[in-house]
């Protein structure tokens, strides 16, 4: 098989097929799966960690674990859910080392203190841009659930698997994430945007 054919075969392969090849030691399959996941997974990690360099490191560690542990995958969840679960675990470990989890709540509290008034930034700023900026101020748990639901488009059940928690916890966390976001918007003077 020439290189072009091999690449199109990789593109057509399902995640499960690529993972099965990785379990058999196929390094090309590592590249193919990496290429498939790098953008969304890297975006998830950047938004979770708020640190590009750390996100690249955690992405690397995650894919190395996929290589190492591919033979352990039992197909109880989807391949993507399994890989995001590994990435989430590693991201939280990294944050714990940085003590960001504890400091996060303080950062959120600070936002309310130095938020600009309704007449300053908001007029010039697109609402969507404002929401994106304020999301950076949310706690890591809230950022993660918003990311996984809105951008990665995982279902409640898949997010529960990734975070290793009950589905009701996912819904509750999402509820509070959105509530916190509304509070931040109101602190910026955007009352009307609140649902």
């Amino acid at each position, binding site marked *: 098989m020439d290189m072009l054919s091999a690449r199109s075969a990789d593109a057509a392969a399902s995640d499960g097929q690529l993972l099965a090849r990785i379990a058999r030691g196929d390094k090309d399959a590592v590249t193919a799966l990496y290429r498939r996941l790098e953008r969304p997974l890297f975006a998830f990690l950047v938004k979770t960690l708020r640190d590009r360099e750390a996100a690249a490191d955690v992405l690397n560690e995650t894919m190395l674990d996929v*290589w190492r542990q591919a*033979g352990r995958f039992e197909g109880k969840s989807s391949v993507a859910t399994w890989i995001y679960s590994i990435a989430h675990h590693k991201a939280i470990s990294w944050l714990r080392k940085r003590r960001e989890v504890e400091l996060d709540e303080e950062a959120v509290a600070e936002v309310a203190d130095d938020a600009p008034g309704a007449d300053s930034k908001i007029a010039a700023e697109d609402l*969507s841009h404002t929401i994106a900026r304020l999301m950076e101020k949310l706690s890591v748990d809230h950022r993660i659930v918003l*990311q996984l*639901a*809105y951008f990665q488009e995982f279902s409640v059940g898949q997010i529960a698997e990734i975070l290793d928690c009950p589905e009701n916890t996912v819904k509750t966390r999402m*509820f509070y994430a959105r509530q916190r976001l509304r509070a931040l918007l109101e602190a910026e003077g955007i009352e009307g945007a609140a649902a």
Partner: protein
Amino acid sequence: MKHEQHHGPLEPQDVEELLPWYVTGRVSREEARGIEAALKTMPDLAGKLAQVQREREAVSRASEAVEPVPPETLQRLLQQVETTRQWRVPRIESHSEAGGWLKAAMGRNVVWQAAFAAACVAIVALGVQVYNPPAPGEYGLASDINGVGGATLLVTFQPGATAGDIGTLLTDLGATIVDGPKPGGAYVVKLSSNQTGDVEVATSNLLARKDLVAGVMAGQ
């Protein structure tokens, strides 16, 4: 994680909780129907849905704006892959799907698992003879062996033990499966060479995991 399905009409709180997944099309058909019915009867729900859509758009836009992964990340990964050992399991060629080997060996059938459990009991007595037939009296429990570098053990696992759990246990002990399953289901587990003199410890550690390990015997 078991999916918690909604049955019957959705409560207003359920509807609101599901809106973030409704906008991404990740609710069940039944849930979608419930939300659409609620949109007709709850006057303020359309505004809440619009807010959710704005949030989703904002999150997606911000995520799409993330610059690509530095190219050296893949190069670094591939270099590490070259020098990183995979968690290896005995390969059964006809079951090439990842992780399927143990499932293939034991299956999910209850009757077969019960038979396997009975076989595990028998193999504790028979395992050494099957693997390495010795003269009578020449074999003993693993705990009788001292200081054999790269020593092997015959290990039978509990029917309910998963490949993942077994792999973790062996990795923690610095041991690997090198052969098996033998008739009756025993695996030949080799201890790392730096465990010379630690055979007793390894045996104790294995036997301590009664949830995973059914029996341990000395190999050769």
